[in-house]
């Protein structure tokens, strides 16, 4: 990286300018709707749906946030979401990376068949297996419990297995061969060579799994009753008037608070993603 900054050529400055310009334009396009969403959460309902559009509220409506956390047992549901997201992400990380490692490095009998199954599972749409799967879990008396998420975590996710496989194939083979010559078992190779060099993809996989479980409003809707459900489900329909129509303002405020952990997680996680790869012993 140091090499690049030495030359401050005029064209360098121009390309640098263009770069920032592009970044800012994209940031504007992406950020405006998000900004709108945030600013809406502190308006009154009439300001929110007003035409012509009112950009700023007359009075900041912190009441929306108060309503958001008091109209429902916000923190209770958030804790359910947190529990499921953490449990699932951690378990899935372990099993998916293990399976991905195996598919990437071990070309043994049956590995291609199993990998085809993994791909096929990614393609099969959820709706075709939804009801039968529910029946299976119902017979096992696991509906309205958190056990399905535990089991799904242990099972790993095809998407992540595939991701790890792709990533692990980019790690130079010399590392692995050197370790083998040294007498390392495959497990040690995995644990001490591949994983430490995979912080970016580990972080990515965790962020993805956490986000998707945190935001999952369909799974809990099918398997959990109101007392045990997660925040994602609650936000969709939790703020209603007596006729069942949605109350927009607490919903928006709730959605903002609810997005915060994901943003924080990403902000922290992306520091891991930028940690470079340790490539000791590559000169073979």
């Amino acid at each position, binding site marked *: *990286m140091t090499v*690049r900054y030495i030359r401050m050529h005029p064209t360098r400055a121009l390309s640098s300018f263009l*770069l*920032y310009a592009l970044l800012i334009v994209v*940031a504007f396009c*992406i950020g405006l*709707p998000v900004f*709108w*969403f945030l600013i809406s959460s502190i308006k009154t309902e009439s300001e929110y749906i007003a035409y*012509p*559009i009112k950009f700023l509220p007359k009075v900041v409506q912190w009441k929306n946030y108060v309503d958001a956390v008091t109209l429902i047992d916000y923190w209770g549901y958030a804790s359910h979401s947190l529990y499921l997201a953490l449990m699932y992400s951690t378990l899935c990380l372990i*099993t998916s990376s*293990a399976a991905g490692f*195996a*598919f*990437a*490095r*071990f070309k*043994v009998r049956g590995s291609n068949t199993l990998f085809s199954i993994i791909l*096929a599972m*990614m393609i*099969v*749409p959820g*709706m*075709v*297996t939804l*009801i*039968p*799967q529910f029946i*299976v879990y119902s017979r096992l008396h696991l509906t309205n419990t958190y056990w399905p998420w535990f089991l799904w975590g242990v*099972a*790993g996710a095809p*998407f992540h297995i*595939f*991701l790890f496989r792709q990533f692990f*194939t*980019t790690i*130079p*083979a010399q590392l692995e061969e050197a370790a083998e010559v040294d007498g390392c078992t495959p*497990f040690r190779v995995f644990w001490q060579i591949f994983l430490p060099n*995979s912080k*970016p*993809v580990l*972080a*990515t996989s965790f962020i*993805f799994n956490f*986000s998707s479980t945190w*935001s999952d409003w369909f799974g809990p809707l099918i398997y959990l009753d109101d007392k045990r459900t997660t925040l994602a489900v609650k936000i*969709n329909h939790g703020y209603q008037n007596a006729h069942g129509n949605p109350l*927009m303002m607490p919903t*928006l405020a709730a959605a903002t608070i609810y997005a915060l952990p994901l*943003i924080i997680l990403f*902000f922290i996680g*992306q520091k891991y*993603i930028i*940690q*470079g*790869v340790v*490539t000791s012993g*590559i000169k073979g």
Partner: protein
Amino acid sequence: MATAEVAVAQPERTARHIAPRVVRRTVAFYAFVAPWLICFVALDIIPIVLGVLTSMTDYDGLNLATVKWMGLKNYARAFTDSDVAYSFGRSVLWSAINTPTWIVLSFTLALILNQAVKGRDFFRTLYYLPSVVPVVAVARIWAIFLDTNNGLLNGILSLFRPGTAVRWLSDYALPACTAISVWGGLGGGMIIFLAGLQGIPQELEEAALIDGANKLRVFRHITIPLMTPLIFFQLIMALITSLQTFALPMIVYGGGAMTGGVARAVYLYVINTYRHIFAFQRFGYGTALLWLMSIVIMGLTLVVFRTARYWVYYESEAAGGAA
């Protein structure tokens, strides 16, 4: 002692050298995939089999008591259903537009944000934000912008030509929905490419630069090849998800979507399928339609995999690979 060892060990050593290693690696492989495999066999096979069986019945969600066997009639029907054909075409078009757009844009962004630009962390987090905006808010946000009579975009255009009421979501449905889809998906794609870019050893790039290569050549001959596994991954994922898209138009067109009441241009395959399932109680037929699409996607995936040997560079295989 030593001679005896050698004399005895030598012939055996060749036999033990290959077989035990293969056995060890096979055992290791299965040990690593055991959690997934066991759960798959125990929990996934039955639902899949039942899912296939459902597609051969006239199940409507409620009539287990009177459900009838249809054999392959549902599948045959799909080929004469003009709605199915049309919506399939729309989904293919949707995928053809969205997939390259998404991959190219998120790759470009990842490239840019991989460099030492000021405010890099801020930009990355900002680009990721759309994926954390919950579904419930996305439609409202975009409706505010694109609404025909009261939207911001038409409002701005009305400043130049009063009374403008371009029907963005009706006449330009495909571009509008693509824009929303890209907006929401950039962040996720960017992260994966960022992770991949970070996996490229810096020494390689620096060595090439020292050897006199300019940045473009470094990009072409080092970065891209080493990123091909992930590009391949993103391509497959994009194919799978874009052909099965249904949520986005459903959100944008509000309650109308379960009835198939989306703009004709985005009348996608799964939207048509859900219309059959939820408005016409054809759960069996709908399941068959979903299976058909799965078969198509599996075929496409197979094709992409076959082409992989021509353009995907696997470090492990290039260097002689693992056994």
